[in-house]
């Protein structure tokens, strides 16, 4: 087990290095960083001295070396526009993203799993059809459109909920619902198909033969085995969500990592762009490691060697 974790961590380091390198390369491919960051009426002298002050006049390899050397300490340099260390900016936004992710995850888990199980158990019933058509709809609706519709209905027409911003529990509702919708649908469908597989297995028949109550068969015996692919997908979703929900955060003016990413790109703030990309990758890799390790708790037959 320990050996497995060590191996995975080593791999994570390699992945992070690769992502950071790509982030570094991409930002330089998008044009000369100095001309990107300056204003409309700067003189050539101003551009040249800016380039020198930012260190963009040094050989690319030297800049890359400096960039890599800072990585282990989480040092991505200082944001050009905001003049604050990149890592500080990321950590300031992370609680907002964490809050939104946690709320969305709560909705995803507590809505998708019961619906998925119900659909599988009552296969081809009206409830199943309604649930699965709903899921298809929820999966196809663009997040952007859904967010604006929720604002219109609950914010502007009914005036039940605040339109945007972060602050109270009520502010959290609309963005969490928007963010959760797609994943809830996706996972409900996966739970359903995974349950259907499991329900056809011999041990379920045995459980029935033993006279176990239905809820126990479905929720204890079947669901536990059906959950492995669900957890995998959930892990990917959480990893993605923690990297920042760009569209949802933008629509609801939610001050999280996604907005920071967008802002970094729009302001051509190269150190910040590199920082958020690498940070997103780190979170993704770690979450997936945790997910992989959790398999053996859910299904003791799985052993990491």
């Amino acid at each position, binding site marked *: 087990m320990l050996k497995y974790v060590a191996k995975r961590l080593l791999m994570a380091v390699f992945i992070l290095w690769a992502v950071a390198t790509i982030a570094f390369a991409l930002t330089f491919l998008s*044009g000369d960083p100095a001309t990107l960051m300056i204003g409309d*009426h700067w*003189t050539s002298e101003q551009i040249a001295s800016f380039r*020198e002050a930012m260190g963009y006049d040094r050989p690319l390899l030297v800049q890359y070396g400096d960039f890599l050397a800072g990585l282990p300490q989480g040092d991505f340099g200082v944001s050009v526009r905001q003049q604050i260390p990149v890592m500080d900016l990321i950590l300031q936004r992370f609680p907002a993203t964490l809050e939104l992710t946690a709320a969305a995850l709560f909705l995803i888990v507590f809505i998708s799993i019961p619906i998925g199980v119900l659909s599988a158990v009552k296969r081809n019933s009206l409830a199943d059809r309604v649930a699965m058509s709903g899921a298809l709809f929820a999966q196809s609706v663009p997040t952007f459109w859904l967010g604006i519709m929720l604002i219109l209905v609950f914010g502007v027409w009914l005036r039940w909920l605040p339109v945007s911003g972060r602050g109270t529990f009520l502010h959290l509702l609309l963005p969490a619902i928007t963010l959760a919708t797609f994943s809830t649908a996706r996972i409900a469908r996966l739970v359903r198909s995974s349950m259907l597989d499991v329900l056809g297995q011999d041990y379920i028949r045995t459980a029935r033969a033993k006279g176990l109550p239905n809820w126990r068969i479905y929720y204890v015996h079947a669901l536990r085995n059906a959950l492995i692919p669900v957890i995998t997908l959930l892990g990917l979703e959480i990893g993605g969500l923690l990297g920042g929900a760009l569209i949802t955060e933008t629509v609801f003016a939610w*001050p999280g990592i996604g907005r920071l990413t967008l*802002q970094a790109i729009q302001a051509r703030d190269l150190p910040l762009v590199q920082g958020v990309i690498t940070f997103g990758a780190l979170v993704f890799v770690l979450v997936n490691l945790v997910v992989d390790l959790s398999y053996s708790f859910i299904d003791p037959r799985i052993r990491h060697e």
Partner: protein
Amino acid sequence: MRNLFRALTFSLALMIGGCSSQGDLTVANSTDISTMDPFGMFSRVEVAFGDHLFQSLTFFNKDMEVEPLLATSWERLEGDTTWTFQLREGVRFHNGAIFNAETVKFSIESYYERNAAGRTVGGASVAIPSADITRVDILDSLRVNISTSSPKALLPFYLSQMWMIDPGFYTDASDADRAENPVGTGPYTVSERIRDSHVALAANPDYWGSAPKAARVIWRVIPEVSTRIAELETGGVHLVTDLPFDQAALLDDTPGVHVARISGGRRVMIGITTSGGPEPLKDKRVRQALNYAIDFDAISEGLFSGQVDRMSYMFNPPYNHPTLEAYNYDPAKARKLLEEAGYPNGFELSSLDTPLGKWIQDFELAQTIESQLADVGVTLEKGVRTYEWGNYRGKLLSYDLPGLFMQGSGGEFELLTEAADLTITSPSNFYRWENDEYEELWDELQAALDPDRRQEIGYRMQEIVHEEAPWIFLHIQPDVYGVSDQIDWQPRPDEIIHLWDVSLTL
């Protein structure tokens, strides 16, 4: 059950506690205030925000005129390169420090030191090289002499762009301190800041002037325009910026809010490489022909719902030429001019280049122009080519877009900086256009003191540019705001929003 009850009361407490107070005047922008460092605030939104915290010796008012602020009067001395400024008495910084001649010397010198070190000087990035201040001498605690390298008629204007900062705080402040803790003399201080969410300003109790009308002003950032509008409709915010035309039309019919439109300072045109590029474009008759080939009314109706103003001049008001007329749509004349220039059957250019999404409808605009030019025989081998803005800007600055290219020039509302863009030494002369008379006028303009003569020079420059046509004249991009009926606010043409004299009626 008890837990459920507890959760409910907790949410209720949050709901009540989290509401912003009723009297807050709130403005919503699409972008955040990225720093509160006086030398780092750069965009129009940031500069406008900064004006609530920091003040300059002079003030550029809503009529685009310079008036006294921290300096009460000034005069120009013999020799024309030195000015004496009388400073306002009894002004204190937010931290209690006294504003005096030392402050002025420190502030101006800091700007120049930073600029020389290649670091950003924010909203003063044009004023610093233009003013070229060489020394600041303290005469007494409330009088300074400011000297420039050569006579600068516009020194009082340039000084309106340089904020006065407290030496006691800014001498040793770290970058993070500068970004987070602004210390100015303005009517407001910062009471709360959540990055990417809002900055709350509270009236400065020790302000030297009359107290601002709203006790608290909130600058929110809401990137999505539909959300900004929803907040405006529900009373969450009172002023929203950057409204697209189609959305503004919808807001016109909404009760409780109105739309404020103003012709802004951003002019959009198709730049033409006049030397070093394709041969036909070197001939001014060809460049005029390209202008006559444009059916602007069709463009305006088709792409902008008729809501943009045609650009006939090149300098923003009050320096705009009053009688110059925009090129009219006259394809026959265009063909005739092309024939005179030796291109009876037109000619082919490589492409028309444009960034994507930098200016309103830029790509659609370029496509329309491509087809209108084709009507008079000027065709594009590769059609409209689009670039990401970063790449495009790099290519502009290195003259790597030979031919026709989309270009927008920002509003300065100040003759000298705008006129500079077309001098041959300016990096913003993307057209590589050179004209002897224009250069002579430019030399004269830099030193000219008499406002009438300056205006005259400005007019003549615009006549030359109109005749020489280094670009295809298009339009002036308007600024559109959504405004709550609860406030009495008028837009300025330079995108600057000042809220200290705006009151909120509940």
